[in-house]
């Protein structure tokens, strides 16, 4: 059954603002009422600090927090509950891996990252390089953003790659790297694989067991949940061997005058009071999403992107970035407009209520590879309509006319 978009839109309070056309879901998704209600209800009825205290409220909060972990386990199809670690966001999840797992790397080791990566899957590895001396190597892409598997093979053949850190869906080009192929090749060469699923998690199913990835990170706010909550998935045996990340309360088993011993996973990586209401909001977002099938959601977003492709390619001076085939795109489409800087374009569109992102989208190496400084991005979510996409065309044509 196809999605009923007007009914879906009514579930998002912010979308009641008729002055807005929100096409920036890749930056962050709007929130359905169910998420807002779940967080509010938790604060109003069950709020306490989980994993602390014997009183009834602490128990309710603990159960709610751990139920949220279970919903994430189901969302990712993780084998074990303790493979789910809560973090602040996707960026912190990747940093956790870089600081903890990465601290054991040696000078001769290498981390392979692709040119598609968001800065949050680049900078932590540069920081890891500074601390351990390990190398950072680049997996190349073609002009449309396809991963060059030959380039990956060349890096893996050296035998020193310990981790391949790669996006599951580009936040600029909307391309999906061939993950199963990459993971298979990396494992054959003795390397682990980390997937940055910040974009992917909101646009298609994830099955970490089927993928056989070793780490996967995503943020709550990009899948219609709240900000301030993210997730690191890691295989149990890998997580068990990792040293703690941040130190403090809850992550310890015992603290003595001469030192400490860390807690078991996953609490070992959850120092201090956690974003409990946000975890509950994330659970609500996951459950809210489960009322729809991925098949319907993907079909809807594909229609939107098809229309966006046809609208944009019909405008003089517009150059689309990324794959030529619409079927290879998910979630977003980025482009440049001759004669107008993306900031000017999105400022002018913004006055018509059209919200789109301009800049390098935290992917400077990718933009350099494409030979541009900045681009404009149109991104879609479950609530967007074809009519919204159609508003973009005349608005860009008007902007061009003003700058001509």
């Amino acid at each position, binding site marked *: 059954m196809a999605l009923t978009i007007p009914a879906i839109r009514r579930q998002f309070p912010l979308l009641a603002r008729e002055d807005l056309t929100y096409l920036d879901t890749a930056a962050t998704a709007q929130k359905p009422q169910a998420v807002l209600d779940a967080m509010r209800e938790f604060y109003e009825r069950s709020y306490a600090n989980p994993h602390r205290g014997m009183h009834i409220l602490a128990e309710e909060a603990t159960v709610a927090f751990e139920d949220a972990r279970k919903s994430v386990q189901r969302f990712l199809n993780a084998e074990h509950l303790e493979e789910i670690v809560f973090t602040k966001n996707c960026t912190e999840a990747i940093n956790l891996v870089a600081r903890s797992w990465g601290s054991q790397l040696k000078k001769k080791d290498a981390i392979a990252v692709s040119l598609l990566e968001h800065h949050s899957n680049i900078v932590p590895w540069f920081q890891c390089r500074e601390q351990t001396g390990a190398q950072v190597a680049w997996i190349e892409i073609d002009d449309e953003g396809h991963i060059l598997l030959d380039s990956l093979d060349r890096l893996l053949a050296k035998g020193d790659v310990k981790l391949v850190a790669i996006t599951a869906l580009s936040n600029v080009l909307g391309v999906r790297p061939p993950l199963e192929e990459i993971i298979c090749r990396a494992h054959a060469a003795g390397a682990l694989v980390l997937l940055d699923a910040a974009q992917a998690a909101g646009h298609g199913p994830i099955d970490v067991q089927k993928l056989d990835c070793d780490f996967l990170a995503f943020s709550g706010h990009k899948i219609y949940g709240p900000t301030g909550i993210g997730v690191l998935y890691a295989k149990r045996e890998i997580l068990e061997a990792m040293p703690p990340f941040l130190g403090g309360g809850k992550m310890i088993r015992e603290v003595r005058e001469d030192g400490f011993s860390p807690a078991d996973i996953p609490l070992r990586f959850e120092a201090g009071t956690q974003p409990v209401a946000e975890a509950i909001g994330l659970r609500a977002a996951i459950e809210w999403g489960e009322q729809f099938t991925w098949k319907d959601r993907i079909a809807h977003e594909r229609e939107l992107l098809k229309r966006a492709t046809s609208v944009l390619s019909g405008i003089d001076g517009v150059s689309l970035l990324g794959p030529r085939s619409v079927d290879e795109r998910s979630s977003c489409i980025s482009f440049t407009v001759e004669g107008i800087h993306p900031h000017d374009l999105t400022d002018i569109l913004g006055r018509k209520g059209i919200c789109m992102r*301009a800049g390098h989208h935290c992917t400077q190496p990718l933009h350099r590879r494409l030979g541009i400084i900045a681009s404009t991005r149109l991104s879609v979510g479950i609530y967007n309509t074809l009519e919204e996409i159609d508003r973009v065309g005349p608005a860009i044509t008007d902007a061009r006319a003003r700058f001509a």
Partner: protein
Amino acid sequence: MDLYAENILDHYRNPRGKGALQQPTVAHEEVNVACGDALTVELKLEKNQVADLAWTGTGCAISQAGMSILNEELRGKSSDEIEALKREDIIVLLGVPISPRRLKCAMLCLHTVKNALRKARGEEPQSWLMTVGLEATD
């Protein structure tokens, strides 16, 4: 008043003072990393005054028009006079409303010129925070 007033678009299309000097006293580049706007200013300083200047750059209409407009104000000004310029002065020069989201675009010219002068004095560049305040930094 529209941000993209005719004066702004005119300076963007036909930038004034764009080019290079034969023997600048100092040359300095600043970029707005968020969007890639870039300006390089060359100053010829004589007796602590701007005898001549030239600039090059790429970026949005506001950053480029801003430099073009500021360029017309700087000749003959002393370092102290330029140092005293504030963001409000640039907004007056531009003559259009500048929202917080475009403040860095508008102030890139002032930031570049001030840091060129600091460089000429052998000082460290000042931060964006010093030039524009916290609401426009990212």
